């Protein structure tokens, strides 16, 4: 999506810094800004864009701006400071953030930590039927179908979608919170 326009490269307008161009792209991007796409549009090296993004992040933090640069779903995004959430919500009550149900979070956790799973696999771990839940998560774009597993019945394989990363503020699946080994009560059994 964001890459569609990356073919055309108007390049950096004369007299303007890479910093201001990257800043403008960050503001105007409807999805997390991918450094590769920005680099193509500006006809510069991707590393120059990533470097600029990181120094912008640092600059905003240092200057105590009301917004920050976060890395999410494989890109960068300009967002308001979490401390200002109450203020922003008071201004725009219609954007009340969606919180998923525990069941939905459990299902997503199975898919995320395993990278992908079939419905039967999710159900085995959760111990309940997950048909409706998977359909709902699909509809909300949080998960996507990724082919079929080559076993009898050829079940559909589900995997977390980019929207999942965005919703949980994760840069990538490698950014998932680590699974804590069970500290107490069990006798040294590692989980998973």
């Amino acid at each position: 999506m964001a890459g569609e326009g990356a073919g055309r490269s108007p390049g950096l307008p004369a007299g303007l810094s890479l910093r201001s161009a990257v800043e403008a792209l960050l503001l105007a991007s409807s999805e997390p800004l991918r450094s590769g796409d920005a680099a193509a549009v500006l006809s510069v090296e991707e590393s120059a864009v990533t470097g600029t993004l990181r120094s912008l992040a640092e600059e905003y933090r240092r200057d105590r701006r009301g917004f920050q640069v976060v890395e999410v779903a494989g890109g960068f995004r300009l967002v308001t400071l979490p401390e200002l959430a109450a203020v922003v919500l008071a201004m725009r009550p219609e954007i009340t953030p969606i919180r998923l149900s525990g069941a939905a979070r459990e299902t997503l956790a199975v898919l995320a930590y395993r990278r992908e799973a079939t419905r039967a696999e999710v159900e085995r771990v959760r111990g309940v039927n997950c048909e409706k839940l998977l359909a709902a998560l699909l509809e909300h774009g949080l998960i996507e179908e990724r082919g079929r597993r080559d076993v009898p019945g050829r079940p559909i394989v589900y995997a977390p979608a980019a929207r999942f990363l965005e919703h949980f503020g994760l840069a990538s699946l490698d950014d998932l919170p680590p699974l804590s080994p069970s500290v107490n009560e069990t006798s040294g059994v590692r989980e998973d």
Partner: protein
Amino acid sequence: MPHPYRVRLEAFEGPLDLLLQLIKEHRVDIHAIPVARIAWEYLDHLAGADQLDLEDAAEFLLMASTLMEIKARMLLPVAPAAPGVEVGEADPRRDLIERLLEYRSLRRAAEALGVREAEAGRRFSRPLAPEFYGPETGVMEPLPVTDLAAAMAALLRRNRPEQPRTIPREGFSIGEKMRLIARTLRRRTGERVLFWTLVRTGSGRREIIVTFLALLELLRLGWADARQERCFGRILVGRRGR
């Protein structure tokens, strides 16, 4: 036999969740579940449930039968596993314990994700509803200033007295209608409105078509959703959840 802290079944994500809860209450190691006692309490919960929806209860009942089976097998003098002792190959509880451990690990992962979710929900990016594409980004098609001069000159040449007055035709474009629909939907967050309420009374066929095309565009962009129960039925339009 009523349980002192009876909970509604819907409060649990499933039978594994209920079992974990019971084990936690007994403060015992998962590896040494006192199956007999737990099974009893588990059945209590089922019996005490306000209502047993068959579809939802099936999994709870299946677990009940599993517990009963384990309990029965443990009565047989095959594997005398004392509490706290590592579970042997032959322990009838083995499968259940593994599932419980895996499920508990999942619960923790889901909780950790919940924390991340709450954090992410406190950061807001720029709202980019289609109606704001243009002015939002400040993107305007470049126009040389000489065009402005030309427009003025043409206007003055044209603007002679006695010129017949033109009656302006109502202008509407898909973009304009998209903005209008989006605005209406935003004002009625969480509601669904009839498609016809989006069309102004007295609109001509062309305007209705343009409104409909605007709606399709909003659907394509994932900004709105619409439902129509049957052919030629009424169309209910709502704003799509973020």
